[in-house]
């Protein structure tokens, strides 16, 4: 999951980025409101963590601008403003969650996963496709009850596809979901990861839609 982190405090931003990475998130960090709005507008992020007291543009304005452009990326406000009117305003302006600093990193991760799950219409914490189970919190995969070891990228790729089960994802969309800034992406990286997934799980786990992209079919018993 690729997360946009908008936080102006260098020490806190550094800590959040490192911590969320440890939890398996891909994190891009911006330090002002203008950059936050610009990045959110691309729609490439699975979710965003937004500070309110940002330089150049206040977090609430950023949120308003993004929602005004019909971008539905889940946004978690992380702020020191704990007043009830602030919370109400933040949520009314389109935030999906409101957390007051300081926050436990694990809780922040859980809240982000919850936001992403709900944004994709999922009701349970574990994603299911037939006999394949994906647990985002534990970052584990089981097939027919047996744990399958996947690399970080493979897991993230499968996660992105299962979140969007039944929808066809283009190679570019998958790349945007998988890689934060500063990574050189090989042109066939996605194909390589898909190949590995099919080998480690089963060939039909990911289906190719020729000329468009890839999909994990939405099965009857998937939730």
């Amino acid at each position: 999951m690729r997360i946009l982190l908008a936080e102006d405090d260098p020490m806190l931003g550094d800590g959040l980025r490192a911590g969320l990475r440890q939890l398996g998130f891909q994190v891009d960090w911006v330090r002002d409101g203008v950059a936050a709005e610009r990045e959110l507008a691309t729609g490439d992020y699975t979710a965003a963590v937004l500070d309110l007291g940002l330089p150049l543009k206040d977090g609430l304005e950023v949120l308003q601008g993004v929602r005004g452009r019909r971008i539905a990326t889940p946004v978690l406000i992380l702020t020191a403003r704990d007043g009830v009117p602030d919370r109400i305003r933040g949520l009314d302006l389109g935030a999906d969650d409101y957390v007051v600093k300081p926050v436990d990193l694990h809780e922040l991760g859980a809240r982000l996963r919850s936001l992403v799950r709900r944004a994709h219409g999922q009701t349970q914490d574990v994603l299911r496709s037939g006999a394949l189970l994906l647990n985002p919190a534990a970052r584990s995969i089981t097939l027919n009850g047996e744990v399958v070891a996947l690399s970080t990228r493979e897991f993230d790729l499968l996660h992105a596809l299962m979140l969007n089960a039944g929808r066809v994802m283009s190679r570019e969309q998958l790349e945007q979901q998988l890689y934060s800034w500063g990574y050189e992406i090989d042109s066939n990286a996605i194909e390589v990861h898909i190949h590995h997934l099919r080998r480690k799980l089963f060939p039909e786990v990911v289906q190719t839609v020729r000329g468009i992209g890839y999909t994990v079919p939405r099965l009857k018993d998937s939730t």
Partner: protein
Amino acid sequence: MRPRSLQARLLAMAMGLVVVVWLGVAYVTWVSARHELDELLDGHLAQAAALLVVQQIEAEDSDEVADAPSLHKYAPRVAFQVFHGGHLVMRSANAGIAPMTNKALGFATERHSDGGEWRVFSTRGTEHDVRVYVGEQTASRREILRAVLLSMLLPMMFALPALAVLLWWAVRKGLDPMRQLGEVLGHRRPQALEPVALHNMPSEMRPMVNALNGLLARIESMVMAERRFTADAAHELRTPIAAIRAQAQVALGAGSDVAQRDHALQYTLAGCDRATRLVEQLLTLARLETASAASAASVAPVNLSMVTRGVAAELAPTAMARHQSLELEADAPVLVTGDDVLIGVMVRNLIDNAMRYSPDGARVLVVVKSEAGQPLLRVEDGGPGMTDQELARLGERFYRVIGNEQSGSGLGWSIVKRLSDVFGTTTQVARSSALGGLAVEVRWPHR
């Protein structure tokens, strides 16, 4: 004793005035009634005397004294005597044998041996040796006057309590707006600071309510400032704590990644330093706000050069660590008034700010001198300086220049500003012509 209740006071004063006026009216009426009564009754006496004189002409001469019968129960109060040639010839039953008065003609008031006081009219008959005296007890006049006075005062005795009740009601009714104001204020929630509505307010109460509203407005602005301060302080305190927490968790989760753990621990320590500095600044500010200006601005002269040199010496190692050159020009002693510790706090904040917001290797120049008799402290730096807009916002609590990487809280300026108020100094911020950064100048008033 002063009545505590306004209503009781108004009532007492109104009732007192009513009684005084009523008594005054009664007195005037009594005086004028007495005058009229005297005139009327004296006229009666004279009339009676005239009748006796006329009758005397027809009376036969006799040695016998004719005693007139008493015809009415009031008759004993009236008496007459007729003398002819020195002899009493006719008298009323209650009259003595001696003439009632020595006065030959006109009215006289005589006290008789029996204790009664008599008003006597004496006159001569047509014959010169006839003398007629007609007298009346003055007690009867006093009775009439007493009756007149009573008729004035008795209704007052009954009217006064009724009037008191009516006045009490009227005063109470008149003071209603005050009681209503009291109720309105009494029922307010403690947080409600909006002004009291002035419409329907009697003009006498407007100044009071206006003053009250002014006070409420001042309290509200103070409360707002406090609230803003609390919100800002919460933000400034929560962010470093959140950073410390996040970095500590990263260090815990780093596992075998030693570089990441060390980095996170370094940041954890730096976050602690930052929080410590912030707490110190907040405490300084809180102390300043409680310290009265009188105790802060002591009269003892302080050598500003010496204080500044001490502060600069303390800060020099920090400057050297960042390869900044901290220079001090304070050759002659410059005396100012103020508490040396507080002056030290101010100087420290100024130099610390200059160093903090200047890049590594920059110059910071501190000058202490006396210019035209005015003590002056100037701190210049080679930092990025400030735009006019930023200069205008300087000194707002927690205001920090955008994009600043330094971990300042913006509280330093609040402290300098507050101390400047205490010392009565003027603080000017401008662009440094020598170093290109910020130049802060503090001028003390003439000693």
